[in-house]
């Protein structure tokens, strides 16, 4: 009985402490998301944007790359004297990509009901974009993804219409599959290709696209899939015929590809070349020399890219690079909308759509079509992993 009393008193004390702590913290103004969609916000000297990414969970590795690149932009922006009266504050939203899209929806709702948030960078996954569109639209928030590449996200009808709200600073999979298939057939002249997806929408879409083109060109293909939560690929590898020339692995998570490549080599099939997608673009993590990868383009000579690489001990984390541009676009739009001291989320969306960056760290100018896609020449590049683990652009 005494123990129960002590426990009860402890629990009550803890609750009081927690309530006090929460109450004294400056909580953001919460209001109905729908009313904030049209509300005019006083901008002040500090403006707020949200970053929706997988900070934790199975895809935290690539998510944190995106967060670091986006925050790298914000840090550089805030450091400029000219921006001393228009600094940017970031609100984090952990979408836990790979666990459940419900987290992405929760983040979207949280941003939408936060009156200070004027624009959003993210989310990362195509499935997250689909799930959270309704919440962003209800809150009137524009959101720019640096990695959601599913083609149908911007067609205006499949999986919902998000035109005017959703933008992306990456080319879509419709551009990636032909680049990959062309390289395999025209440059590498492969005749037999094994294709393995990781059961996610992104991966299956790319795998379907590439397989279709290869089959049309008379290339023999076989299809399989892996569970990304599992690390033992020995049985999958045992199925791959030794006379196949390449294995296409459009996965997310470079550590998975590294493990797969090592097990492939250990099984005596290291002569079969791996070909990955943008989700595997992680120099220093996926380092099976000779492997190929299609990825977002970037300008390696750009001083900002060099500064990031230097600040991160030689690791470029280039999967996150488009999120830098996404942050740049959002911040630019917020700043223009706040020119008169106040802004609405609709204004911010309008200015996102009107963005015209003459140059970017992607290596080309950035502007958006009505669909939310970047205008040409946005496309994918082909890289090859070198012996030192770096990715060299070869196409």
């Amino acid at each position, binding site marked *: 009985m005494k123990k129960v009393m002590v426990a009860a008193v402890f629990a009550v004390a803890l609750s009081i402490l927690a309530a006090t702590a929460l109450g004294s913290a400056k909580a953001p103004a919460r209001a109905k998301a729908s009313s904030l969609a049209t509300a005019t916000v006083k901008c002040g000297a500090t403006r707020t944007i949200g970053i929706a990414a997988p*900070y*934790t*969970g*199975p895809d*935290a*590795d690539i*998510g*944190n790359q995106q967060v670091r690149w986006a925050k790298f932009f914000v840090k550089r922006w805030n450091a400029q004297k000219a921006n001393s009266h228009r600094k940017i504050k970031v609100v984090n939203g952990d979408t836990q990509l790979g666990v459940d899209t419900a987290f992405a929806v929760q983040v979207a709702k949280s941003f939408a009901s936060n009156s200070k948030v004027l624009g959003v960078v993210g989310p990362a996954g195509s499935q997250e974009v689909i799930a959270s569109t309704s919440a962003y639209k209800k809150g009137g928030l524009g959101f720019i993804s640096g990695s959601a590449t599913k083609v149908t996200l911007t067609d205006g009808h499949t999986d919902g219409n998000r035109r005017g709200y959703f933008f992306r600073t990456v080319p879509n999979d419709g551009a990636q599959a032909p680049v990959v298939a062309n390289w395999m057939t025209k440059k590498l002249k492969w005749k037999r290709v094994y294709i*393995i997806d990781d*059961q996610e929408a992104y991966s299956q879409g790319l795998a379907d696209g590439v397989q279709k083109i290869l089959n049309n060109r008379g290339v023999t293909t076989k299809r*399989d*899939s*892996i*569970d990304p*939560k*599992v*690390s*033992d690929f*020995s*049985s*999958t590898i*045992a*199925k791959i015929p030794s006379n196949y020339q390449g294995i296409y692995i459009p996965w997310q*998570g470079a*550590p*998975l590809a*590294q*493990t797969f490549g*090592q*097990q492939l*080599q*250990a*099984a*005596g099939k*290291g002569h079969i070349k791996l070909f990955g997608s943008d989700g595997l673009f992680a120099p220093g*993590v996926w380092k099976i020399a000779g492997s190929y990868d299609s990825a977002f383009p970037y300008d390696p000579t750009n001083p900002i890219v060099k500064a990031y690489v230097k600040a991160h001990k030689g690791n470029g984390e280039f999967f996150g690079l488009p999120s830098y541009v996404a942050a740049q676009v959002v911040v630019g739009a917020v700043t223009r909308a706040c020119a008169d001291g106040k802004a609405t989320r609709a204004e911010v969306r309008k200015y996102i759509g009107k963005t015209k960056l003459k140059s970017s760290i992607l290596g080309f100018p950035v502007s958006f079509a009505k669909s939310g896609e970047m205008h040409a020449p946005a496309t994918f590049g082909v890289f090859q992993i070198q012996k030192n683990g770096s990715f060299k652009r070869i196409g």
Partner: protein
Amino acid sequence: MSSATRQQVTSLWGLALLLAAWTVYAVYFSPTTGWTFFLQLTVNGIILGSIYALIALGYSMVYGILKLLNFAHGDVYMIGSFIGFGVLTLLGGPLNPAIPVALLVLCMFVVAMLGSGFLGLAIERFAYRPLRDAPRIAPLISALGVAFFLENSALLLFGASYRNYDGFDLISYNGIHLGGSTGVFVSYLGVIVISGAVLLTLALIALVRWTQFGKAMRAISFDREAAAMMGIDTDRVIATTFFVGSALAGAAGVMFGLLFSQIYHLMGFLAGLKGFTAAVVGGIGSIPGAMLGGLLVGLVESWAQGYLNGNDSELVVFGILIGVMLIRPSGLLGTPALQKV
């Protein structure tokens, strides 16, 4: 022959028949026929199953003595893998080890097992012992809480990025070719894993069968109160059981890291679930059952990945669990619970 033994023998015969039928189908009638492919998958399954067996042993030991399902066990395995990785990094890493590779690997195992063992001790002392006489649900909830606590602690301490053992770079990409260069391949790493698991299991069986501690363990698993009345220090024996079970999980964590390279803070969940499945299929509370269950789960997973699709293996593994529970609820080598009437 007692009724329980007869049931176990029947189960084993049934299993043997099923395996024989499956072998015939796989080798002669499946879409991918041939002995080489089948044997390769079998070898892969045995390697994987060895790791599951070590995890399952911990589940079985704790359940046998306390009738508690220690759901934090998978995360102890995860912590063990991180401890092993820490030792590997401190001693030069896989590409440039500061000491001979054999010694380095031994250090990784010893430190990981000790670290996991002490973690198991701490968990038992603070999360389970106070609830020993509480209703069964209480320690179960506590176990889940500990699991989440360990996962998030690992996330906080080590971050979300995967760590890579690069086991093949450390040891070797080579192995043994059985039946020529196109025959069945067993990597040296695989050999280390299988032999390590066998050695540890034999050591455990020897501990339980032929030592005073083992006798005390068996006494407590039979009747804790009576064992206490006979002068056995039940707290110490239970704590030591947790230590041993957790140490085995730590060893499994290092084996996993060496073989499959990547470790991360959530890896314990699925492995723990499969270890639990293996323990239940083999007969929870039974040490030979845990070994058998682990091997079975590994084999089924490997065969499913090879003959079906990569995404069907989980379906099959957990389907087997349901099937075994329906036909033989106490598991293949488990003893049906006695009921007082």
